[in-house]
């Protein structure tokens, strides 16, 4: 019940903020803030509740479940369930929801009601993706979260918003169609061997397939997730979409939507196709490692603040991909950690970029310089998140990257050493970012006012979380291991959990 509530609150809150804005302009943001606030409180409450339950292997790691008939003709059910990994991703989504409402507070003046409707519905779609355990339902949410995101970029985006939004939509939606075909293929393979037409995750988990079929179906899933994550040859939509989106859109894209891709790899690709994922892992890890370096190099070459941060996402998510395909407890823990830490730190960098853009109306780093002198608070936070992004020990990203490399070195030490080069390249781009924007001469003569209380609250809380993740990562790592069990074990444990 609580699971559908998590989605429903966001949907209803979005509708409400749209309606309320028509009555009283300016009130939509309050409704939106209340909604995401309630969502965050609920998820944190769930986490506290479940801290003890997660330790009990008897439940197989599943904290809550909901199943109802939906379209019996196709064996589709409304099946939501939450385990540790879904839980922390939902918490991340709710937290970034609060952040994105806060950073839109003054940025979005026009059509605010419709903006918050789209924002909250994107979040609702993402929460649905993290909770759905029926493949049809998963696909449903997967596609659904793109539409409001598209509107956010297309209506409130920057100069090249049309191009960026259409590219974003075609890449993600088009690749989603391949996933739909793969889902159907999987379902029919299962149907032919058992005579049961079903889209349920647990039913499909141990479908017997010939190796080549398994590989093809897995590739269908992989392409969709690879576009979303993004893995390197499929990443070209990302810099455009992130750069052109409004601040809240960038935060949600980087913090939440990219995670749905990595989550898909973790939840579906490897467990559903263990053998095929096994053969394919070297390729995927190589792509991930290429992404780590390529993203870092391109980030260094950028002059647009948001574009730079967008390319760092490619680099950071590369670690998550590598960690997932290395598939051992360290690398998986690291991948999950990386997803969370990246969500917070990159989100914060986008918030900073948004604050600068709101005041100066530019993102061109050549036009900045000497910001430290006029906005010391912002500059300090910029430095903090830049060094978080470069993976300084004590911050969340370091824990993630370190664990991934540790797990990877057991599987493939060559790739691990290649990926480790990223520790150098990320220092280069992160420090270049700080250098170009905050240090040097204030050549443009900017006179800007420093962070407001709202902005400070947003950034400080993000900084606190980054530090907490770096200094005491155990709660996140505790939530993650349920997936580190071998995939068949998940299903077995689930059946036992149901039998009780």
């Amino acid at each position, binding site marked *: 019940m609580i699971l559908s509530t998590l989605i429903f609150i966001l949907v209803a809150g979005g509708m409400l903020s749209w309606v309320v804005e028509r009555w009283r302009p300016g009130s939509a943001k309050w409704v939106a803030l209340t909604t995401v606030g309630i969502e965050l409180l609920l998820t944190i409450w769930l986490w506290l509740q479940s801290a003890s339950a997660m330790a009990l292997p008897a439940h197989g790691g599943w904290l809550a479940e909901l199943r109802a008939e*939906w*379209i*019996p*003709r*196709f064996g589709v059910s409304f099946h939501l369930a939450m385990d540790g990994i879904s839980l922390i991703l939902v918490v991340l989504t709710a937290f970034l929801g609060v952040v994105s409402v806060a950073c839109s507070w003054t940025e979005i003046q*026009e*059509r605010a009601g419709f903006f918050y409707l789209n924002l909250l519905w994107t979040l609702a779609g993402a929460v649905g993706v993290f909770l759905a355990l029926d493949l*049809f339902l998963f*696909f*449903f*949410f997967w*596609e*659904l979260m793109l*539409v409001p995101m*598209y*509107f956010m970029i*297309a*209506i409130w985006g920057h100069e090249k918003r*049309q191009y960026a*939004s*259409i590219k974003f*939509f*075609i890449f993600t*939606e*088009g690749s989603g*169609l*391949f996933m*739909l*075909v793969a889902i*159907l*293929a999987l*379902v*029919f393979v299962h*149907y032919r061997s058992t005579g049961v037409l079903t889209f349920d995750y647990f039913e499909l988990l141990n479908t017997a397939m010939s190796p080549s079929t398994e590989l093809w179906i897995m590739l269908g899933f992989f392409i969709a997730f690879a576009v979303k994550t993004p893995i390197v040859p499929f990443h070209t939509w990302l810099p455009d979409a992130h750069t052109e989106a409004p601040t809240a859109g960038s935060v949600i894209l980087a913090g939440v939507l990219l995670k749905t891709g990595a989550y898909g790899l973790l939840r579906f690709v490897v467990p559903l196709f263990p053998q095929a994922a096994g053969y394919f892992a070297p390729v995927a890890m190589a792509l991930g490692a290429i992404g780590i370096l390529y993203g870092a190099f391109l980030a260094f070459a950028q002059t647009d603040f948001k574009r730079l941060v967008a390319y760092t996402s490619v680099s950071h998510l590369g670690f998550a991909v590598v960690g997932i395909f290395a598939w051992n407890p360290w690398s998986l823990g690291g991948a999950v950690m990386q997803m969370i830490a990246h969500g917070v730190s990159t989100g914060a960098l986008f918030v900073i970029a948004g604050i600068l853009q709101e005041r100066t109306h530019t993102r061109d780093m050549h036009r900045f310089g000497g910001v430290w002198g006029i906005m010391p608070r912002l500059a300090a936070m910029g430095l903090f998140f830049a060094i978080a992004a470069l993976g300084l020990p004590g911050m969340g990203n370091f824990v993630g990257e370190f664990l991934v490399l540790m797990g990877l070195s057991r599987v493939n030490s060559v790739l691990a050493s290649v990926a480790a080069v990223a520790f150098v390249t990320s220092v280069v781009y992160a420090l270049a970012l700080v250098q170009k924007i905050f240090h040097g001469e204030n050549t443009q003569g900017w006179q800007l006012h420093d962070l407001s209380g709202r902005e400070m609250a947003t950034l400080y809380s993000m900084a606190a979380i980054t530090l907490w993740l770096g200094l005491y990562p155990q709660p996140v790592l505790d939530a993650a291991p349920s997936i580190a069990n071998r995939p068949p074990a998940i299903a077995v444990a689930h059946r036992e959990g149901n039998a009780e």
Partner: protein
Amino acid sequence: MNTPPFALHSNLMVLSPLILLAGSAVVVMLAAAFYRHPRPVMMLTLAGLVLSFASLFLSQGAGSPQVTALLVLDHYALFFIGLIVAATFVVVVLCYRYFGGDESRHEALYILLLLAALGGGVLVASSHFASFLLGLELLSISLFALIAYPRFTERPLEAGIKYLILAGFSSAFLLFGMALIYAQLGTMQFAQIGALPAVFERGLDAYGLAGLSLILVGAGFKLALVPFHMWTPDVYEGAPAPISAFIATVSKGAMLAMLLRYFVVADAHQSQSVVMALSLIAVVTILAGNLLALRQDNIKRILAYSSIAQLGYLLVGFLAFGAMAVEAVAYYLAAYFVTMLGAFGVVTVLSRGTPEQDSDMLNEYAGLFWRRPWLAGVFTAMLLSLAGIPLTMGFIGKFYVLIAAVGASLWLLVIVLAVGSAMGLYYYLRIIAVMCAHGSEAVTGQMAAPKVKASLAESFTLAVLALLLIWLGVYPDPLIRMLETTAVHLA
């Protein structure tokens, strides 16, 4: 006629939906002759359609569905007659204000619409080449007149003549194909063609195969399958918007439903070469329809190309054959009807009246979201449904077609469908992007677009269509249950 006389009563009952349609055409004609006011005539038309729709439930189970050798009103036919009647109802509502409301003299339009609907009904209920042709001609001839109805303006006339010539050709092809098949098999009844021992296994000889392919060519013209699609964009663009909606839905839907029945009943899918040819046509149709739509600037043309692509998707479901295919095609057609009616409905509502001034250029839609949010919202929903995005019927329809095709292992077609849908996103999004433009672009849109107020009936109809679209997109179970019985009765 070999029906015993005592069956006459039940036969009439079974036929009642078609009889009522024909009857209301006569009544409307008489009424229009004596009392020339569009409003009562339109009301009468609507009443006739409602009666005919209600009689579908009467007809169901009133007796043996086979009425003479010509017509069969089984669940399958009744479902499609229902769809056609409902679509005609919507078109009638849309026509009223568009053609000038109570001030103009456009009563004849309603008679033509009723006759066209009757033609469509006969077409989907036909089980014999004679009734097939009869229904088709009734539909086509009414359509020439409907397309060219605003007869003092250039574009509709041009479109009407184009349609007339091509429809004439396609009927000729059809007739010749039927003649060839009759020459080989000696029967014109679908069921008997199918019952002939292993006609298709043995392979048709050159006559039969030529006949079958000529029938496909003729049907291809009506369905606007590539390479027989050339007329579509011009006719859609030239015809008055509500009439374009009618061609896109009733005319194409009836033809496809009839073709599916013929293929299933006559077992035509046993012929390898026919299936090959149809698969090729489906691939080309999907790709060409989507590619050609990419660079259009006229909404009616985009919708025309989009409807070509949609027919390609339908053909993929069609080629799966079997019960699942029938369900998939029926669901997809229902979704397609709702969507196309909605989309053309929005174009109609935005247009001033005469087709010379239809609001169909893309720039007239700039900023529509901020000027008329509800209308733009409905249009967006329809476009997203055409693109197959969840929450809409279009998504479930595409899903259904994909399930049928994957179940029949038509991998090539499935991949082409996915690629085509991905391409299609571009031009649907382009319209949506234009509608949510703001700033200077929106101002030009405001200047260009005529300010027309939608009538209450139009708003209501569009709202119902949009709600239906979302309701059956989220909870398609009721419709699916209905379709399951439909499919069982046919296959």
